[in-house]
Each structure stands twice: as C-alpha cells, then as structure tokens.
C-alpha cells in the first residue's frame, strides 16, 4: 500500500506519538487543573508542556497564547466569528479552504464585506493585488500558507507587511504547512496562526490550535464557547484571561500529548530535512506525471514553490475513476474531487470536476512515488 493522502491526514504516525497518547492516559489520566490531585496535576503538566513546546515551535513568548482546539477549522472559527462584526471588511485569497470560506460567507450574509483577491491559475498570489484590495477599514486579512489543492505556497511575510501598513490583522491558515515549512510568527509578523495537529505536525486527529501573537489585544475577541475552565469557579461569567477565555470544557489530553510527541519528533529530525525529503518526492511526482500523455499537472510545477501536494486531471478519465482504480488495483491511496475547497478549484480551473491529489509525507519513500507514477500511467492508459 502506498499512502499518498497526507494532506488529508498524515499516516502512519511516528511510534512515539502513539506511545505518548497511551502513556498520558495510563499515567496522567486526571482532568487537567480541575481536581488538584496528582493525576490531575500530571495531566495539567502534559497540557502545559505542550503549550510551551508549541509557543517555541512557532516562536511566540507567552505560552498562554496557545489555545487548544479540536482542529484548524475550530481555530479559524474562533477568530472569524469572535472578532468580526457586521460592516467589517475582510480580504481573503481565492485559494481558501471551506474552513475559511464557509464561516466568512455566513458572516457576509450578516453584513460583513468580503473582498476576494484572485490568485493565478497556478495558485500563486500577487501581493500587489492584496495591496489594491486593502482598504483603510479592512479589519482582517485571511490567507492559507499553502493550498490544500495545488500545494502552492503563498507569500505570508509580504502579505503581513502590506496588511501592517493599513493596520489590518492577519490570520494564517497553516493546516498544510505546520511541521513542513518553518513558521516564525515573530519574524513573519503573523497575528493569528491556525494549525491542525494531525497533518505535518504528526499528531492525532482531534487536536489543533490557535496561536495568538504576543501583541494582539484579545479583549476584542468574543469566545466561541463558554463553560468550565477549572478556574474562578465562583463566577458564572467566563474569565477574560488566556488560555481559559477560549478553552472551555475538558481538553483532548491524549491528542495534546500525541501532538507534543509529534512536534518533538519533527524538531529531532529537523524541519529542513523533512522539507528537503518532501521536495524531492514532489519533484519526482511532477516530472513523472508531466510525461504521461493526457495528464494536466496543476499548480506551480516547481517543488520550491509548493508543499508536497500535486494535483492532476486527465483528459480521458474521470478523477473518481482514477482514484478508485489506483486504490483497488494498485494500492495507491489518493484523494479525488474538490478537497473542501471549491474556491481553489475555480481558481486553478478544475471546478466542478476536481482533481486527483497526491500528497506524499515524511514516511513516503522515493520508490513509493515512482511506483505511484507508474500505476497512474497504467490507469490512464487503460
């Protein structure tokens, strides 16, 4: 079996991740910070240590500004629905996932003004177009760090400097880049970073987070949910301080411990080494697919400009048929269709049919991608 669906969720997970998840349930199985006995404190320690590691990993100073969520979608919703008011103006790229577009389209129905900046058909973004779209009253700019459809990396640092000039805040959707591209929130100047634990960060599904830069005033953001935090229980009102303001209810301890093990595993290997490996695999896929007659490779066609995601279509075959054959006859697992990102597919010209998406990961080998290319060639030629 060749697993090429790491953009949906990475698999397999490092053994350390599974071990950490079992370990925390076995030895630190209390409710973190609620009860005060030894198992509760050990659980709180597991959560807090992860907070510190994430703060270090994305480079912010204050670990209480790492908010645990169930995934990137949840983190994005905290910002969009907590910060934006009717009449506010928001700029987004045309390559966004529905995790961004659906909450924004709903807010638009309620009076938000949405400016969608068109990207080129390879998924790339011209920062001048962001500058043109930005108005003096633009509250927020939302862009993905890399597209889940074409893999194309967007120029986050440049967008930040443009957004700064008008005072707009920047939310980056790092679902496809956390753990595979270096992200330094201070150096980039990112205000909000939404990440998920179960893709490049090597953790399990069901855990993600929102990292809020040290300088951002959080009093302007309403929490999505309110409830028990284990703190200030005498009050029936939600506390204002972090992370409790945005973290109600018992967190996913096993997921958080697994995420920490994933991040430490990445730091041990080195993110540059992981990136190098994935670039090679991406290059092999792009070259191999480009040689197959009738195949159109989407995206920038250059591993330097993309994460390890290669989408393609074929003239003669439906993507669903290709995906099914690859799975059934060759054991090559891909994802076909629209990838929850109709806007991105419209931008690259593959809507409504969609694409076959190949997403190798850190455990994919050079032989795996060669075999996958030859399987695709056979499926297309059949």
């Amino acid at each position, binding site marked *: 079996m060749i697993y090429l669906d790491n953009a949906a969720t990475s698999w397999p997970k490092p053994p350390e991740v599974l071990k950490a998840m079992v370990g925390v349930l076995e030895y630190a199985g209390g409710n973190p*910070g609620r009860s005060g006995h030894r198992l509760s404190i050990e659980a709180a320690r597991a959560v807090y240590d992860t907070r510190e590691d994430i703060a270090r990993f994305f480079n912010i100073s204050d*670990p209480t500004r790492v908010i645990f969520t169930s995934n990137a979608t949840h983190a994005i919703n905290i910002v969009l629905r907590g910060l934006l008011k009717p009449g506010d103006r928001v700029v987004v790229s045309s390559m966004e996932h529905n995790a961004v577009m659906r909450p924004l389209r709903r807010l638009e129905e309620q009076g938000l003004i949405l400016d969608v900046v068109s990207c080129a058909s390879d998924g790339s973004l011209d920062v001048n177009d962001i500058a043109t779209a930005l108005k003096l009253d633009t509250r927020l700019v939302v862009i993905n760090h890399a597209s889940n459809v074409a893999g194309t990396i967007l120029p986050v640092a440049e967008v930040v400097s443009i957004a700064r000039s008008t005072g707009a805040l920047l939310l980056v959707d790092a679902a496809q880049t956390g753990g595979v591209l270096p992200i330094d929130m201070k150096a980039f100047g990112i205000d909000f970073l939404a990440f998920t634990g179960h893709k490049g960060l090597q953790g399990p599904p069901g855990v993600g987070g929102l990292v809020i830069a040290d300088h951002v005033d959080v009093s302007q953001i309403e929490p999505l949910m309110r409830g028990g935090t*284990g703190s200030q229980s005498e009050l029936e009102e939600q506390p204002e*301080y972090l992370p*409790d303001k945005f973290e109600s209810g018992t967190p996913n301890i096993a997921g958080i411990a697994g995420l920490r093990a994933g991040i430490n595993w990445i730091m041990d290997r080195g993110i540059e080494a992981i990136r190098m490996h994935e670039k090679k695999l991406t290059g092999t896929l792009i070259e191999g697919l480009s040689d197959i007659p009738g195949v159109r490779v989407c995206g920038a066609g250059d591993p330097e400009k993309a994460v390890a995601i290669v989408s393609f279509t074929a003239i003669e075959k439906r993507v669903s048929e290709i995906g099914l054959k690859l799975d059934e006859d060759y054991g090559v697992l891909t994802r076909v269709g629209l990838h929850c990102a109709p806007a991105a597919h419209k931008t690259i010209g593959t809507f409504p049919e969609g694409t076959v998406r190949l997403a190798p990961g850190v455990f994919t080998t050079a032989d795996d991608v060669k075999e996958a290319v030859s399987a695709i060639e056979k499926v297309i030629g059949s």
Partner: protein
Amino acid sequence: MTEYGVVLFYTTSSAMRAEKLLAKAGYAVKLIPVPRQFSSDCGIALRFDWHQNEQVRSELDKAQVEIDSVHRL
C-alpha cells in the same frame, strides 16, 4: 514543622509555569488543590515554604508570572 504559604493563580497554565520555574531554581514547591479558606475555586495552587516567601515572590515577579494572591497556610 514547616510553615507553608500558597500562591493562587488565575489560570492553571500560570500555576504550571510557576511550578516549573521554581522547581528548576531549587525551591521545594508542590501543586495542591486551592485551599477552600482562600477561594471557592476548583483549581490548583502552588504551596511553598513560607520562609522563602520573599524569594518566591521575587522569582515569580521576575519571570512575569501573573498571580492572583499569596496566603500563609
């Protein structure tokens, strides 16, 4: 018999951070349930040796750990 003091925090995260840095600096500290006489809170507090009250406070201050209050047990 050791005389203890407790530090109360607004959030568990601060308690964890305080414990980590004080333990590293060699202080004998322990996280305990918040004593009911000081708060109705259901969270955790940091217990320390009352003789080190000044030093503990100054360490927390230096590291900018936000605290709610300090009490003698």
